[in-house]
């Protein structure tokens, strides 16, 4: 069952995933080449110059990881939605088991862009002469990319697993919570002189700060570091 579900996911996700895999391979190469060419001319503190040049590329990688995870999650559910889940619902296994099979088989596909990042990072860093004190971390970098992509995959998979109505309700609920929470917290803080945190801050703290699940997206995504 798992092998066949993996096969199905591969068939439906490979083309949507292909551009992201190519970018995942090319982006570390491009980042390292651009940074190296920028620092070639630098005589004083070339290490610092290299790190500075690489930092420009930092936001692209978590963004790409998110896109890869989202592309995987949306692709594996796309046909089920189009056929109103009829095939899935008439298969002789409990729904949770079907969802678990689909989740697991889809998660394996997330490894493909992560391997592409690893390959790009390894090739790019192997051809580079690093200034003293700096090291390349292609495996750690690719692992971080994989984690970030997995988090996006899991979150989008959960959202996409429901009906369009459920997804709309969840997202609309979230937006309403943010808008009215923001207004409500502002009003209470003004009138009662309290210090209630705004919903956006609460959400940010819960999701983005350690140990929030999206914490992996923050910080410096440095392929080369001290």
């Amino acid at each position, binding site marked *: *069952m798992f*092998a*066949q579900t993996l*096969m*199905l996911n591969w*068939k*439906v996700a490979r083309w949507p995933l292909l551009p992201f895999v190519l970018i995942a391979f090319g982006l570390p190469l491009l980042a390292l080449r651009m940074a190296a060419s920028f620092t070639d001319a630098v005589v004083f503190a070339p290490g610092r110059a290299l790190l500075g040049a690489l930092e420009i590329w930092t936001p692209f990688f978590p963004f790409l990881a998110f896109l890869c995870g989202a592309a995987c999650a949306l692709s594996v559910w796309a*046909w089920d939605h189009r*056929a*109103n*889940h*009829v*095939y899935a*619902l*008439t*298969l*002789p*296994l*409990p729904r949770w088991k079907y969802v678990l099979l689909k989740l697991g088989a889809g998660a394996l596909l997330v490894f493909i862009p992560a391997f592409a990042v690893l390959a790009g990072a390894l090739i790019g860093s192997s051809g580079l002469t690093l200034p003293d004190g700096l090291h390349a971390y292609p495996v750690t970098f690719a692992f971080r990319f994989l984690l970030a992509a997995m988090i996006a995959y899991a979150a989008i998979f959960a959202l996409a697993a429901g009906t369009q109505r459920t997804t709309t309700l969840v997202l609309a609920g979230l937006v309403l919570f943010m808008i009215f929470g923001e207004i409500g917290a502002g009003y209470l803080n003004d009138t009662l002189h309290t210090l209630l945190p705004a919903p956006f801050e609460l959400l940010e703290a819960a999701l983005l700060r350690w140990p929030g699940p999206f914490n992996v997206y923050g910080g410096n995504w440095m392929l080369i570091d001290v």
Partner: protein
Amino acid sequence: MSNAIEARGVAYRAGKNFEIRDLDLNVPSGSIYGFLGPNGAGKTTTIRLLLGMTRAAGGRMTVLGHDSSRDVARALQRTGYVPERPHLYAAFTVDEAMRYHRAFYPSWDDAWAEKLKRSFALPDDRRIAKLSKGEVGKLMILLALAQRPELLVLDEPTDGLDPMIRRDALSAVLDYVAEARATVFISSHLVHELERICDWVGVLDHGQMVAEMPIESFKNGVKRVRLQGSPGALDDAPFAVLSRTPDQLTAGETWIVRGWQDPMRQYFDHAGASVREVADLDLEEVFVELLRSSRVAAR
């Protein structure tokens, strides 16, 4: 005789315009049960309720002895289903679709699947997205049959297919039923198609069961009776009157009645009329008259 499918007091509502009310259904094991109804009667919804795809608001349903709301996976293990619209993954080729389906059904019969594939002339390596409508229909029937189910649920399986493909598909189903003694629950609005193959019939209209009986009773018990004269009250009629229309030319009436037997002619003698002709109706006419009378009664 036990029932392969049983429903008692099933209720379901979708929006303001559609509901299924107090639906009872009995599909005897080993029968070919034709589930008739006009478009929008609720046939597909009933099937979705039976197979656990949609949740009923009330009532109880069992499929092969398993509760549809709690234990549907075990029922589905023994049930082959062909939905109204193609549901297969379009990215798969025919062979890949067969391999995928086989993975979920331990009773899958490889040899028979191959035989069906050859007899349906399905191309191994063509993607489902590239198959014709008829080929997709045949592939869905192949998948349902090759899992060797005890119950086949076919939702308008031949709708929109050309007569050749329709005949091939129905022949394959009938061959299987003859060999495996499976139960078939087939929904359709193509009455003539069901007339040839079914031994039980249920008629659904506006989410309500209008009639459910063996096909022989269905066909033989309903007659068109042409009368000379116009009888008065009907209180003590020994049959059910489905419709009654005046006949301008003969100054008489034409009645459609259910439960007719020949000695009942005497009833009209006492009612001030005489029977000129009693004629059989084909299944389609019976179907139309049943729907007409149930709609008149519902008003």
